């Protein structure tokens, strides 16, 4: 047996951790090797220090930790319970908020719808109505055209459009700033 192997076994032997065969082999080696015997003695001394330390240090406190552990477990449980409670409740606030949002959206949509003010009551539903950008100056340059009747708002007197007396076609005034090309050759009116 090599001394390096023997020393490994010495480290185990001092704590009685060797297998029986190993212990026997080590004993034989120690019998013949003085270096390893000396090493073994040093190892026994070192282990004695460790054992003295083990036997000399005792716990100073006999107080059980269970009371504290139990308190902390209970504390966590109650915390978890309180954290879970609101999740089970009916979320009235959320529902109210949703309802308000829906109402607001509905009002917004309704406000944006075109309003029929009932001012163009002269129009017949059977008439062909086409959008036109009415420009009063155009009338002077086409004085020999068809007879056009002005359609005026009875409330504020604003010009709403023109009506062709011959064909009963109605041309409503457009809100666009640029003239809109008309269908059926009516650009000349």
């Amino acid at each position: 047996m090599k001394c390096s192997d023997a020393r490994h076994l010495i480290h185990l032997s001092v704590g009685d951790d060797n297998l029986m065969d190993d212990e026997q082999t080590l004993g034989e080696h120690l019998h013949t090797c003085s270096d390893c015997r000396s090493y073994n003695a040093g190892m026994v001394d070192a282990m004695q220090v460790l054992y003295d330390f083990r036997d000399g240090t005792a716990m100073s406190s006999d107080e059980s930790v269970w009371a504290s552990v139990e308190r902390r477990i209970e504390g966590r449980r109650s915390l978890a319970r309180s954290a879970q409670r609101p999740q089970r409740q009916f979320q009235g606030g959320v529902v109210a908020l949703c309802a308000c949002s829906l109402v607001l959206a509905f009002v917004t949509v309704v406000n944006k719808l075109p309003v029929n003010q009932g001012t163009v009551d002269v129009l017949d539903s059977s008439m062909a109505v086409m959008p036109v950008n009415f420009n009063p100056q155009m009338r002077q340059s086409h004085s020999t055209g068809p007879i056009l009747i002005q359609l005026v708002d009875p409330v504020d007197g604003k010009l709403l459009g023109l009506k062709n007396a011959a064909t009963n076609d109605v041309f409503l005034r457009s809100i666009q700033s640029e003239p809109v090309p008309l269908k059926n050759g009516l650009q000349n009116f």
Partner: protein
Amino acid sequence: MAVKSLKMNQSDSGFCPSGEDSDLEKSGLPAVSDARLVDEARRGDTEAFGQLVLRYERRVIRVIRRFMPDDQMAQDLTQEAFLRAFDRLEQFDPSRRFGPWLFRIAVNLTYDHLRRVKRRGKWALFSETAQERTPDPATADPRAHLDLSQEVQAVMADVPEAYRTVLILRDLEGFSTSEVAAVTERSEATIRWRLAEARRMFREVWERRERSFEESPADEKTDLER
């Protein structure tokens, strides 16, 4: 705390390495297996877990105390270890022993704490606290005032973690190699090898320290003679 007595005649198959009786066993109450208590604790029975705490707390405190000299901190870490065990009961494999699992949690927590302290110490190198800690050359070597336990603890601190754990569990706390293997989740062969190395390291560090103590007074004396 009133721990309910469970009417069971099953012997305790728990992990009590040194054969130290728990308070319950001392009081004459019938021993309930760890597995049964763990099972009940997993179903929300806090008192069953309480029995496990009473069964193991002294051993856990002692083991943690071996890693650090501070009694109060050892108590706090013991509480923390049991709380962590309680939180992780669902992860515990019931086919295995509860004791090694619990001690593993305790040892890991202790090392986490020691690493935090060490890191804090490193940062303190740049703080005022570090300046306060700088030894005054006019005063004598503070190591001269250390008693045996402090010296051994200082030596143990120089042994690497993996070896220190084996040394503490086996040589200071009397765990068998198979129990140490269960706590550290290593094979017994590995533990035996580590144990041999740990003892060698301890011896080397101890002897180096002793030599340095022996040399220091001699140096001082020579200086005085001069």
